[in-house]
């Protein structure tokens, strides 16, 4: 039995399309098992001796003889369970129970509690189990408790229900022991090494004329151990004199002598001969400010960013200003505030 060539021709594209669709369209799903499940932690302070109260509803009406609570760094049942560092439930006590009752602790270890009883059919009401003398994990951040139900009294037999609940160790308002991330930032005309020797807070262009581009440079320095990086934006209007203003280059453009134009970039330029590329770190100038010899300015525009931890980085900003013959005379100036904010 052979497929005809014409049939192969017809089937092959369909098969390829099927494989392609399978590959490029991730299927999004939601699990349901134990219903309305939650954990309430008495205090979310790291390493605290506290209470953990579990609530859930069984989605089944079968014989349940045991419930296993397993503390893990991962919520998935098929993955081996690692105990969250510092967590200890080996001394936990079952303080109260509601809904399906008659349970007692039949075994426990550092990260596992097994509740057992004479197997009986469960209903679909809310169930609550409160444990005291539980030691919280020592690290800030999330951890998970896997909850499984079994027909036998000792945590054995086929798995009837399974779900994980998420919990987290948080920083409370009155604790200041954490070593925080630090962000160092400065902006100046010259930064020879770092912010300690930065100097200069204004640039003078001299008299603006229609036959020459006036230009200048400044620098900013960023240093941070924050893992999610940072953004640096420029804040302030273009150069103004009363109600008169020099037009800000809204998109990257070359320096155009004889037109009204104010812009900046963060590259080593040749026209005019000004600026330098950024040095050190993982950050980069953003698209509008990273084209050599093209300048732009937008109030609030992000000029540089890093998406990862960046130790120390020095950027050089080049400014150009041109005026046309119709530019009203006056003293034009602006204050540009460089704003550096860590990403979240």
């Amino acid at each position, binding site marked *: 039995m052979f497929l005809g060539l014409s049939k192969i021709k017809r089937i092959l594209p369909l098969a390829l399309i099927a494989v392609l669709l399978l590959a490029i369209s991730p299927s999004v799903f939601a699990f349901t098992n134990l219903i309305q499940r939650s954990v309430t932690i008495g205090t979310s302070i790291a390493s605290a001796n506290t209470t953990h109260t579990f609530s859930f509803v069984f989605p089944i009406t079968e014989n349940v003889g045991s419930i296993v609570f397993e503390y893990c760094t991962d919520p998935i049942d098929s993955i081996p369970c690692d105990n969250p560092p510092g967590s200890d439930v080996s001394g936990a006590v079952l303080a109260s129970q509601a809904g399906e009752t008659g349970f007692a602790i039949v075994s426990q270890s550092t990260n596992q509690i097994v509740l057992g009883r004479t197997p009986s059919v469960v209903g679909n009401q809310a169930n609550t189990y409160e444990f005291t003398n539980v030691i919280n994990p020592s690290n800030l951040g999330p951890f998970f408790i896997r909850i499984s139900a079994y027909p036998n009294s000792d945590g054995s037999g086929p798995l009837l229900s399974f779900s*994980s609940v998420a919990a*987290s160790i948080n920083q409370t308002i009155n604790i200041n022991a954490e070593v925080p991330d630090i962000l160092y930032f400065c902006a100046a005309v010259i930064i020879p090494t770092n912010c300690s020797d930065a100097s200069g807070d204004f640039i003078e262009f001299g008299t603006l004329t229609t036959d020459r581009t006036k230009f*200048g440079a400044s620098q900013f320095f960023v240093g941070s151990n924050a893992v999610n*990086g940072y953004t640096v934006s420029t804040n302030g209007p273009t150069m103004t004199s009363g109600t008169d203003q020099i037009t800000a280059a809204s998109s990257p453009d070359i320096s155009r002598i004889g037109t009204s134009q104010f812009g900046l970039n963060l590259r080593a330029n040749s026209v005019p001969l000004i600026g330098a590329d950024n040095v050190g770190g993982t950050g980069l100038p953003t698209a509008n400010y990273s084209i050599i010899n093209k300048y732009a300015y937008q109030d609030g525009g992000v000029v540089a960013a890093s998406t990862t931890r960046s130790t120390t980085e020095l950027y050089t900003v080049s400014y150009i200003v041109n005026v046309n013959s119709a530019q009203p005379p006056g003293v034009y100036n602006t*204050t*540009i505030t460089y704003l550096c904010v860590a990403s979240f």
Partner: protein
Amino acid sequence: MKNLYLKLLAVFVLGFAVVFAAHSQAHAQSNGLGVAPKQSYTMQAGQTATNSLYLSNLDKNAPLTVHINVVDFEAADQTGAARLLQGSDQPQTPWSLKPYLTVPDVVTVPAGASIQVPFTIKLPDNIGAGTYYSAVEYTATRGTNPQDVTIAASTATLLFINVPGNVSELMTVQDFGFTKNNNPASHYKYLFTSNKPEYFGYRIKNSGNVAEQPAGSIVIKNIFGKTVVHINTANPKGQIVLIGQTRKFTGCNPASTAPEKLPLDSNCTPVNISPGFYTATLTIVYGQNGQPSRDIGATAHFWYLPLGWLIALIIIIVLIIVGIYWLYRKMSRHRHHRRHR
């Protein structure tokens, strides 16, 4: 040798002149600031708490006057970049901390020193559960007379307060997949890869009233359903999705699972898999303390085929097609001969 030194000096002076060719004048003072970029706390409704924010003057020679302002912020895009809402006509955001947060307007930091800036948060009894956040902005300006272009430096602490209670939590996964680099602009969906994948990415939409920090894991199974890779930190940098934001999360297969190394980009290594077809499953479990836990996730499929394998596979497929065609022709000819006889 002397000539070499002179040449180096000349190059240095020339380079310096090129970089700073402006007719600029320098004031010998720095506006350098050191701050804690992000702080998160949990507070109860009705609670009043005081704490302090770290602020340092990086200038070792002169004290620094810093203006402090509370500003709302939002996500600038699908990454973790924050956009401070500084417009004077900017309406207060629903999650603003402004009404509850008190900070000094101005502080002076001695030369080369750091201070703790006190702040007070007073939450009303009837405040709703959820996350409230604003930025504490610090601005250091030295210039008193505006020149052509006056330069100022500003930075901020992003302050998050979680108020426990009956919060509304709803996150949905928009997409998920593995990628070749950790660029947030990368697309995560691809069918074939000739290199072992190293980085993963997914987007989550937060429709609740809590700034969520998703946690979960990723499992990669081969075509037979066997787990070959398990990454138990789907959010290794502890990134946050703000209220109303759709955010891209990126991470990688970690070379070391030591907590201090997990957030580092240098801690990435390609997954150890053989050529073949794979299914990756992302599972996120979330839920505030005492609130219902929910699971969300997504799957993605991909082929890992090194170039050599791909070429061999194409040759095999071509040979199979040619073979089928040859057999078909032979059978057709055979039938034709039989009919003819």
